[in-house]
């Protein structure tokens, strides 16, 4: 039983069997007669629950298992083990009644009919979802208004900008008023204005209809603007489930002191108060443990010629990158080479799906090591 939750995942795992191709002609011929396979764990023992009306961000680098998890939750993929319950349904067996309750929006693979105006996809979805004329009119009017697409519905999709296409895609996907939205990279490749328009819409849809939203994005701004709670996944395992603020406390329990000095000072003088990360002319940045901030600030002000002092949290991109980097280091220390290989293969499997454009995983964040994927195909 979900106990009222919108989404429940219990020990979800998904393993692919992957054919390994060796390089060169001999390897290719060998693979014909003696194919080699290896198991790739795309998702491993992932558990969480999401309450109705929540907006949850799902973060992780390419091949981490985000999209695979979403595809299990929407009934596209059959989990190797574990259990999922979404809107009270087993997604795999829920059939049409389940599909009517959800919407899946894929930033890199859209359902709009390429050669026709978006209006035609809306009309098609009206028929597919069996909406009455009144339901259709109401939903269309609301979506056209909130997504501001009145002027572009009659232009062929291929002539629309990426941002316009995504707004129309959302209209097509939400025409049936789903209570659960699975948004996989909805702002992928959009400019800042278009990203903000999508965010504003998702926020408004959530507020107006009380919809539950699970959102993956490479853009931290999407997550910080929309999702008070985040799930962080890497190498198929859930690393973190909680608030963004608590994440910073846990992964990077530091504050930044940004100083403007009246005159240049020696690095050694600054290092008495914390770790110096920047020192340029009259400007310096120090990292100080959270619990020491008040004391360090007071001592700094007394000891050095400080013209200005500001205390900030480290950017969330950096916190997330630290989470991934910390996990990678732990894996290497523990010598889990097999896990490393599995993660590499996952990168190969999912990168084929169109996320290959941004290998860093999190925009603006230092890149966690993502080696080139081996030449493999899912068999």
């Amino acid at each position, binding site marked *: 039983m979900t106990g009222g939750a919108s989404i429940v995942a219990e020990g979800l795992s998904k393993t*692919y069997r992957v054919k390994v191709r060796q390089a060169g002609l001999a390897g290719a011929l060998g693979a014909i007669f003696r194919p080699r396979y290896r198991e790739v764990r795309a998702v491993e023992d992932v558990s969480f629950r999401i309450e109705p009306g929540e907006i949850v961000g799902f973060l992780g680098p390419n091949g981490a298992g985000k*999209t*695979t998890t979403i*595809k299990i939750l*929407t*009934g*596209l*993929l*059959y989990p190797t083990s574990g259990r999922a319950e979404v809107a009270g349904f087993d997604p795999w067996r829920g*059939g*049409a*009644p389940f*599909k*009517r309750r*959800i*919407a*899946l929006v*894929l*930033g*890199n*693979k*859209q*359902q709009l*009919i390429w*050669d*026709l105006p978006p209006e*035609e996809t809306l*009309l*098609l*979805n*009206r*028929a*597919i*979802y*069996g909406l009455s004329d009144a339901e259709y009119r109401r939903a269309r009017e609301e979506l056209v208004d909130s997504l501001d697409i009145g002027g572009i519905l009659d232009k062929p999709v291929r002539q629309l900008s990426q941002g316009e296409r995504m707004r129309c895609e959302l209209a097509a996907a939400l025409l049936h008023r789903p209570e659960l939205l699975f948004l*996989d*990279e909805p702002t992928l490749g959009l400019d800042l204005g278009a990203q903000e328009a999508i965010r504003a819409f998702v926020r408004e849809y959530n507020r107006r209809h009380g919809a539950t939203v699970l959102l993956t994005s490479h853009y931290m701004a999407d997550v910080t603007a929309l999702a008070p709670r985040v799930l962080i996944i890497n190498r198929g395992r859930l690393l973190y489930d909680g608030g963004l603020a608590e994440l910073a406390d846990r992964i990077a329990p530091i504050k930044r002191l940004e100083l403007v000095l009246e005159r240049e000072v020696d690095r050694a003088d600054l290092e008495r108060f914390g770790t110096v990360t920047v020192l340029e002319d009259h400007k310096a940045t120090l990292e100080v443990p959270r619990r020491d901030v008040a004391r360090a600030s007071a001592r700094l002000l007394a000891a050095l010629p400080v013209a200005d002092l500001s205390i900030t949290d480290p950017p969330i991109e950096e916190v997330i990158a630290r989470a991934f980097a910390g996990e990678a280091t732990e894996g290497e220390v523990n010598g889990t080479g097999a896990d490393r290989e599995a993660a590499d293969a996952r990168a190969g*499997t*999912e990168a*084929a*799906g*169109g*996320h290959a454009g941004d290998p860093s995983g999190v925009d603006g964040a230092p890149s966690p090591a993502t080696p080139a994927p081996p030449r493999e*195909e*899912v*068999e």
Partner: protein
Amino acid sequence: MTDSLRTWARRYGALIRAGWMVDVQYRAAIVIWLILGVAQPAITLAVWWSVAGGGDVGGFGQADFARYFFAVMLIDQATLAWDVWYIDRWIREGELNFRLARPMNPLHEAIADNIAYKGKSVVLIALVWFLIAVFWPAVRLPFEPGRLGLAALATVLAAAIRFLTSYVNGLLAFWTTRATAIAELQWGISLFLAGRIAPLSLLPPAVASVAGVLWFPYMIAFPVEILTGTLTDTGAILRGFGWQLFWLAAWAVAYHFVWTRGRRRYGAVGG
């Protein structure tokens, strides 16, 4: 909750409408495909016309060949199925994903697309045949409503079998990247066993008897022979319909098997 007949009628109406509208965008390409589809039986007819000369080959004179291959052109277009190419791409490039998220099996989209295309091409070819028949008596068919009705029924069943073979071949992309190559192989075999290159009665008896128990002749030759009046024996016609129903059921079972197994195996790459 089961969807009502009205919901399904609206779905098919909307899907067929969308199919037609997309076809209008690609009208030049469609005319080229149509010409290509008609060219093969037309060239084959020219060869047999020349071979028959003033006499006959295995009971087929020039006019018989003309009627036969005109019927092949029509029935081939009426039963044409290209779904293997689409389904293969849907699976390999992740275009199946959003289709699986809708409350409708993607099979219906493919069926509607077939209806949309065939509706146009059949009317066009029938019209061209009619106009040619005005000037060339050799390709005229006797007007027998009963025979035309039986031919129409056999054509619908043939189209359903051919559609399912193509769709099931496409679903093999769940396992292999060579689904379209497997379909090409079957197309090559069908040139001979479906009656495209020559009427089945001209094939060596051993080959014809093997063909008779496979699905190939029931996709083209059987409706062609009813339409042209080559097949008149009631028992043979009933046996033909029996084979059609058998192969339709067999391919439907194959579809169910491949679809349910394939979906479990699906990697859903491609976003």
